[in-house]
């Protein structure tokens, strides 16, 4: 308006006035405004009071790098459909029991949120969100806590990162397919390790895998000097095991276990053969193109945290494409429906479990430089989807 006014020369004025009048009365003549899709990424500072292996420190842009690529891909698509995607990052402090996050101070209402939060903070967010008149659509892109999948069944909560259960079930299926069912389990001592161990025990029970011995790593030696003496002693058991399962989320000792076990047996879990959503060596089903795009944008390889975040953006973009709008309720309903079908470089369509919002997905079993296998393994059947042999099924959720 102002521009028109300033540029308005006497002889042009009538023409401009008519144009303005038409564009106001008949919006169709005006330039069509793109549909703006704004996503907020809420990222929490995670504080650990334990040592993390420096070789495993995640890239500074871990996760958010996947969001950036997801936004870029969605905009390439969006330009043909008049849709414009953008995101902003909001970093919140680490939560302490004395000072929990006050969600009422944040603008959550009617938003599209991707979150990387600890379990307590996420549960508080969901509780707050449920009390809102126009709740947000929340996608958990980083927290793998089983409780969030079993106990919380908010219609507006989704998870594009797998649960620990999906990961440990993938390992369990591999053990069964190799007929390795006699396990030495080694525990770390962080809360993350405990969650992982509990999940593995559930898997073991489910697949009748026998945990013949369980040991806790005590951290009373310096492994860098005596690894070849300490680990064999530590992994010595009265009877031989088939495989060693290590639960050490932060690689405080787990990386020293392979090739040093008392009995020469494979090591799996958080060291040796690991299960996760993504690996730089994956190139089938169009994955190579995704890897190339990611590398061009970020000059590094795509990791699982980036993939989990990327898939979240793509899920939103696909839902927006299909329902042609950003109504939160419509998006959430569509994402849980059977019409939702996400192509995500996994060789089959990915869908959300309607009962807990968890993304069904194949899990990749890898060693540091390559892909070993992919779960679900052949032969694991399920009446709905083979992908439901991994993680919690309907009857295990919100009962």
């Amino acid at each position: 308006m102002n521009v028109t006014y300033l540029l308005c020369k006497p002889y042009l004025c009538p023409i401009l006035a008519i144009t303005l009048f038409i564009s106001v009365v008949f919006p169709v003549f005006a330039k069509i405004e793109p549909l703006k899709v704004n996503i907020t990424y809420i990222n929490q500072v995670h504080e650990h009071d334990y040592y993390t292996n420096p070789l495993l420190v995640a890239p500074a842009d871990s996760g958010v790098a996947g969001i950036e690529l997801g936004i870029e891909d969605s905009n390439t698509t969006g330009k043909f459909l008049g849709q414009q995607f953008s995101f902003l990052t909001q970093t919140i402090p680490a939560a302490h029991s004395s000072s929990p996050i006050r969600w009422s101070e944040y603008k959550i209402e009617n938003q599209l949120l991707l979150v990387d939060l600890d379990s307590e903070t996420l549960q508080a967010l969901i509780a707050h969100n449920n009390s809102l008149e126009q709740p947000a659509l929340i996608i958990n892109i980083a927290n793998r806590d089983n409780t969030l999948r079993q106990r919380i069944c908010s219609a507006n909560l989704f998870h594009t990162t797998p649960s620990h259960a999906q990961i440990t079930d993938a390992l369990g299926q591999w053990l069964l397919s190799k007929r390795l069912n006699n396990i030495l389990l080694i525990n770390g001592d962080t809360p993350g390790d405990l969650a992982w161990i509990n999940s593995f025990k559930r898997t073991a029970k489910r697949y009748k895998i026998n945990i013949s011995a369980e040991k806790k790593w005590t951290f009373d030696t310096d492994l860098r000097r005596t690894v070849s003496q300490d680990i064999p002693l530590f992994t010595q058991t009265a009877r031989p095991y088939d495989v060693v399962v290590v639960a050490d989320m932060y690689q405080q000792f787990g990386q020293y276990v392979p090739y040093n076990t008392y009995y020469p047996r494979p090591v799996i879990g958080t060291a040796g053969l690991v299960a996760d959503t993504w690996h730089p060596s994956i190139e089938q089903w169009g994955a190579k193109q995704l890897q190339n795009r990611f590398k061009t944008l970020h000059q590094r390889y795509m990791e699982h945290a980036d993939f989990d975040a990327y898939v979240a953006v793509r899920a939103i973009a696909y839902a927006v494409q299909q329902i042609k709008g950003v109504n939160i309720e419509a998006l959430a309903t569509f994402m849980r429906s059977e019409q939702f079908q996400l192509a995500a470089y996994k060789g089959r369509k990915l869908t959300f479990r309607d009962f807990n919002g968890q993304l069904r997905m194949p899990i990749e079993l890898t060693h540091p430089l390559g892909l070993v296998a992919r779960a679900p393994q052949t032969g694991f059947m399920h009446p709905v989807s083979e992908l439901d042999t991994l993680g919690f099924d309907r009857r295990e959720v919100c009962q």
Partner: protein
Amino acid sequence: MSQHSCSLSYLTKLVKPFLLFSLLSLLAGNVLAKELAYVTNEKDNSISVVDLDDFSVIKEIPVGDRPRGFIFNHDQSLAYICASDIDRIQILDMTSDQIIGELPSGEDPETIALHPNGTTIYTANEDDALLTVIDIPSQQVITQIDVGVEPEGLAVSPDGTKMIVTSETTNMVHWIDTKTNQNYANSLVGARPRAAMFTRDNKELWVTSEIGGQLTVFNVEDQSVKHEITFKIRGIHSDRVQPVGIVLMKSKPLAFIALGPSNHVAVVNTDTMEIEKYLLVGRRVWQLAFNEDESMLLTTNGISGDISVIDTNQLKTIKSVKVGRYPWGIAVKQTD
């Protein structure tokens, strides 16, 4: 794996009468021109050449890294190969089996299509979301057209007026006017559209959606959807039924659709749009090609590293031939 070798021995039994038939026809002096199938091996950086008389691999031609799309020029004197990892379209001389030149292709060319004029070639640049239009005589890029993420399937209408590119991650069919090189329409389809094919009368466009599990048939005139078909194979989960390559038969009202990791090819009656049959082939079948008289249909099977041969009269798979790793593109050449 064991399942596959099982079907192999079964196939050898099936193929015996066929070999006998070929032998008889040879004796009768009914010698047809020799036909050779050219198969690009994505992982081996080579082309396997299969003699279709005895189904032997007669040679392997080394080509550029990660060869995928493969087409002949009109008189089959040259072939154009997308060497994706070296970002080039290579020109293969069919008499000397030598790479005699290259076309500028933009980055990561995956598929190619030749305009009926024989001088314009189109390639999809999968990594850059572009369609590159190349003039062959001058070896110049005429233009690059913005398309969706991971453009893949290409088709030029037989009358040369329109061209199609599908973009896998955008889930879209882009309609392009070949005179102006303008993108004049876009249609959303099921997830991950792969192949596109015009019918010979220019009236219909067939598009497969790999993850959506659909075949969509468009009216070319107004881009309206005419038919939508989903495939169901007994004993195979619908997630594994992933339509990819399409071929339409000239001599019969039949279309063949490769169904990826379901390891089957669907036979569709184009008059009734009914699915007539599913034929078992090798693992992860993606591209298809007929021989000249359409008596045989060849399929490239990515995971099992072979091609399957389908007898189009009996609608039976009669043979599989081991080629290189990850066979991708395929075309059949006539020789004297």
